[in-house]
């Protein structure tokens, strides 16, 4: 008889989004609890045997009591067992989110705080979950080693749950702390190893999966926003893993070069193609050289999209605004104004000039104000 469970990780409840200021950021923070709630409902709906959360449930051990309570509340829809593992953000220290949860006495009976490396039997003993909780923020040794020596009866499903970086498999950027051997599944005779820490979804080794964060939190295309529905059919056999998207917001990063009005149209259509603008965050890197009129129309276009998207972060450092002959004609600039425009154009064209960026903006302001005066 098979066993199914949801594998999720890196909820990081309480996380703030400094790079998304204001209301959009606040909405992102609140959304993470809603996503937990969605996971609970999904688990309930799919009637899974358990939900395994592989670390970093909380953004920090110093989250507020209210956040702790809200998290427990969000999990209510699923009545089956939850296994919550401490990660590097919420390491199982003596004084931690976990100790406070116990002291607050808000942990439901079906929620298991796996802050000790002790086996957890579920499903009437058919499944044993081996947790490797981080009890410090950073461990230099592999906490999953004990999986190799733990013995269980034949036919019992063995599932490991850990938080860290699988050796030899992740990019160097993932870091060398909290290492997990890439052969742990074999040496520990595991049917599945549920991992957290890597925010994208990834089968990093045989039967070894990172679920990724269920709610995307950065402009990085590594398939976030999922939970894994894992089905163990037979001990020792390959698990069935289904990717289920539960994320609400989508984070998109675009790099766009604009030269003229036609580019504006393309940009507009690309932004439209993202769809569901209300829950899309966009980081737009702009490059190219435009005349002052195009620049003005670009600003107007971006303003309109800023009102439609959940958040738009436009970086126009690489976009040069240079007055064209038509701009000059439009400005009808004569005398000293024309002289000033030429000076500013010279500064903007000088790659070594310290005021280069300011000169572009100054030209834009001049253009706007002159247009205003003309009207």
């Amino acid at each position, binding site marked *: 008889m098979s066993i199914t469970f949801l594998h999720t990780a890196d909820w990081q409840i*309480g*996380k*703030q*989004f*400094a*790079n*998304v*200021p*204001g209301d959009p*950021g606040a909405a992102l923070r609140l959304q993470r609890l809603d996503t937990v709630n969605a996971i609970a409902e999904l688990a309930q709906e799919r009637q899974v045997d358990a939900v395994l959360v592989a670390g970093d449930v909380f*953004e*920090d*051990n*110093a*989250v*507020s*009591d*209210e*956040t702790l309570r809200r998290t427990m509340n969000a999990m209510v829809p699923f009545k089956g067992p939850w296994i919550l593992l401490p990660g590097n953000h919420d390491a199982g*220290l*003596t*004084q*931690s*989110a976990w100790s*406070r949860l116990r*002291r607050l006495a808000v942990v439901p009976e079906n929620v298991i705080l796996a802050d000790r490396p002790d086996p957890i039997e579920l499903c009437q003993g058919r499944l044993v979950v081996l947790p490797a909780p981080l009890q*410090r923020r950073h461990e230099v040794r592999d906490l999953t080693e004990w999986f190799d020596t733990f013995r269980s009866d034949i036919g019992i499903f063995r599932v490991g749950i850990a938080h860290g970086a699988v050796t030899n498999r992740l990019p160097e950027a993932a870091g060398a702390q909290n290492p997990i051997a890439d052969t742990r599944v074999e040496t520990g005779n595991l049917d599945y190893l549920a991992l957290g820490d890597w925010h994208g979804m990834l089968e990093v080794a045989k039967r070894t999966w990172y679920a990724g964060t269920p709610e995307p939190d950065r402009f990085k295309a590594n398939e976030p926003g999922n939970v894994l529905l894992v089905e163990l059919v037979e001990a020792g056999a390959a698990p069935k893993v289904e990717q289920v998207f539960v994320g609400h917001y989508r984070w998109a990063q675009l790099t766009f070069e604009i030269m003229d009005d036609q580019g504006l149209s393309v940009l507009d259509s690309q932004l439209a193609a993202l769809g569901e603008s209300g829950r899309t965050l966009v980081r737009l890197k702009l490059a190219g050289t435009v005349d002052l009129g195009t620049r003005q129309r670009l600003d107007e276009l971006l303003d309109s999209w800023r009102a439609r998207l959940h958040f738009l972060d436009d970086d126009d450092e690489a976009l040069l605004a240079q007055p064209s002959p038509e701009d000059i004609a439009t400005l*009808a*600039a*004569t*005398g*000293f*104004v*024309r*002289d*000033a425009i030429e*000076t*500013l154009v010279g*500064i903007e064209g000088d790659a070594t000039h310290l*005021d280069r*960026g*300011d*000169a*572009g*903006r*100054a030209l*834009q*302001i*001049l253009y706007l*104000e*002159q247009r*205003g*005066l*003309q009207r």
Partner: protein
Amino acid sequence: MSKMRFKSIEVNQFRQFRNEVVIHKLAPGLNVLAGNNEAGKSTLLQAVRAVLFDRYTSSVGDSFRPYGAKVSPKVCLVFDLNGIEYRLTKVFSRRRDGEATLEASDGRRWEGPAAEDYLAEVLGFSYAGRGGSRPELQGLAGLLWVEQSKAYEPVVLTDQSRRQVHAVFENEMRELLGGDQGEALHRRITALRGEYFDARGKPRGDYRRLQERETKLQKKLQDIRGELGEYEDKVDRLEQQQTDLRAYREDRVLERAEERVRLAKEATKRVADLQVRVQAGTEQLGRTNAESVAAKQAWENRHKLIAELKEAHEAERTAARAVGEQEAELTPLSERLSQLQNDLVELKSRKQNRDAELRLARDAVALRNLAAEHDHLDTRLKDARSVDAERRRCVSERDAIQVTEEVVFGLKKIERARDLTEERLRAVATRIEHRLESGAVVHFGEELIAGKGSVLLTRRTELRVKGVGQFSVIPGGEDLDVLRRKVEEQDHRLVQGLSELGIDSVAGAEELLRRWGDLDGRASQYAATLKGLAPEGLQAAEDQLSSVSVQHDGLRRKLGDNAGREFVLDDLERQVQTLQSQITAIESDCSDEETVVQKLREALAGFRAEMKSAARLAKNRASALDRIRSEAPDDELAQALREAERDGDVCSRNLEAAKQALYAENPEAVEVEIERSNRALVDIREEIEKLDRDVRDLKVELGALGQRGLAEEVASDEAEHAFASLQLGNANRRARALDLLQHTLEDALQRAKEAVAQPVTTKLVPYLRQLIPDAAPSVNEDLILMGIERGGAPEAFDNLSIGTREQLAVLIRLAYADLLSEAGVPVTLILDDALVNSDDERRERMKAILYQASKRYQVLLLTCHGREYRDTGGTFIRLGESVEWSERGGHVVQGIRQEAMEGETV
């Protein structure tokens, strides 16, 4: 090019001009109107201004009316403008006689206010609302007509004149200055920048508040991060402390510390017991040692006394032996000494005899020597006496001769003088030669002369010739007598000298002198011989002989009979010498022997005393020994000593064993260990208690802090700060852009203004170089001459000398006039004594400049220094100094006499 030219001016009943004054045929170029002070130059200029710029009905007209005049002031001006001649006539009066007429050569005519309005339009000026016209209303005339005493003031463009000057290059200026839109844009950008920066460039308003907010949030964020850091540190500390506490308990650290204390205490007790043992053993050993020492001391004292007795006996015996030995040695030595002493006496007696014999022998020898010496001395004395007698005779003879060398010299001198005088007398004497016939008896004086010969006559001499008679011959000449007397005198002195010496001639005197020398030489020879025979003199030789004689006699008497004896002196001397040597040798032996004998005797006495002393000591020691032996026999003492030594050994061994045991326990280590283990126990107890306490406190504290959700606060503050930073970044970018834009516009505007002034500068530069070669003008964007620059140093207009200022004020007006003239604007330059402060050189340059300018437009130069402007090159018009009445053309002309003829140039 349009032009304006004044052709004539007629003034009547205007201020000081009570009658008509006419200036006509003004030239198109430079006109110099010269007149003395009070001649009416300025009044003339005022009249021109009045007719052009004052309304004829203006109240100011009253001020033009001469005092008490009935007729209203009237001015008529004829001028060309753009090729049309106008005749403008005004009678200033608010009454009916007031009028204004403008007649054009093309037949047009205006009257009253219409004439005035047309004029204002054509010439570009406006009338004053009330009162008289002012320069600022007079358009270009206000700018280019310079009144007396204001020439050195800065040239300022009035609104009207500025408009007219700007109108010349309006298009260029508008282009350069960006027109109204450029100005508006500049104002707008300045205003926009003003929203971000104050006048000093400091942030202001929302921008400043945004910066402050960002700073505040930054601070808040730092603070909350600090709190979170502390919280996390405490979490870590709690973790560490719990780990430590657990380790203490698992390792049973406290129990082990307590066990160490117990063991240390046991060791301490063992050490203390051993220390007691050692102390007791040490005391016991002290006591037995003291007893042993006492026994040993008694035994040693006994031995010492016995030894001393023995030594005393031995010493007595040794001394007795020594006395015997000394006495045996002394006896032969004493005998030998006595023998030596006898030998010495005998030798001394013998030597005494030999000494007496030797003395006799020596006296005998001396006697013989004295006799020989006496004989020798006697012989020499006799020789000496003989030589001395001879010497005395020679001396006596020598001294008898009185002739000396001086005397002989004197006589020879007198003789030579007499001979000389005589020769001279002969030379001058009268020579009478005669050859007498034989038989003739002739006497010359007393002398009979005969035959042939000659007679010299030195005096009157009678010549008697027998048979003839007598002749007196008288030699002539006075000198003859003198010479003759001198010869006689010298003869006399010679004869007298010779007679004193007893001789008859000088040769005799010389013979005597030779005899004197011979005797003197012989006397000296004898004296030398005498000196050899008796060096000390004869008396001494005689004394010596006498002394030798006495000695000889004395010695002879002493020798008596022995005087004739023969002695062998050398033998005697040898015998005495030998005897003396023997005596000396025996005396030395005696002395040595005596010393030895004396020493032996002293030693003998010492030994005898020593023998006596040793015998006394032996007796004392024997009696003492007897006494103490009666108290404690020797064997008893020896037994006591042996027992004491045995007890001491036992005690020593016991003490050593105790010490070894104590050393084995290492008391210092035990002492340190008890201290260490006690301290460690206390430390560990305190540490565990402290850890317990800290863990409890930290748990409580962290529990409370955890509720705050510091991490979320930090994250929230970070978000807030990031938002503020974002806003500030945007504001910064906009502020910097506006700042750059505003400064760029300012700079461009400044350059534009400089460009605006350029046409004026271009016109002014040639004039200025002509006037002040090394100067450059500084004209601002309002076309105002601000000053000049010389040698790179700016000089403000106001700081220049009055002369330079009035020259520059004329030059800038020329520049304006040039520009206006080129643009077709009708201009005329009028200068009323505008260069009164210029020196000769500058005035000359200014005259040349004005003449050049007058090629382009009319220049009227009014001056009271006519002579200095007579050579200006323009038309010269002198205004009369005195009141002259003349009739011309039916008009009465007062006070003005126009010297220049029509078209005349000077």
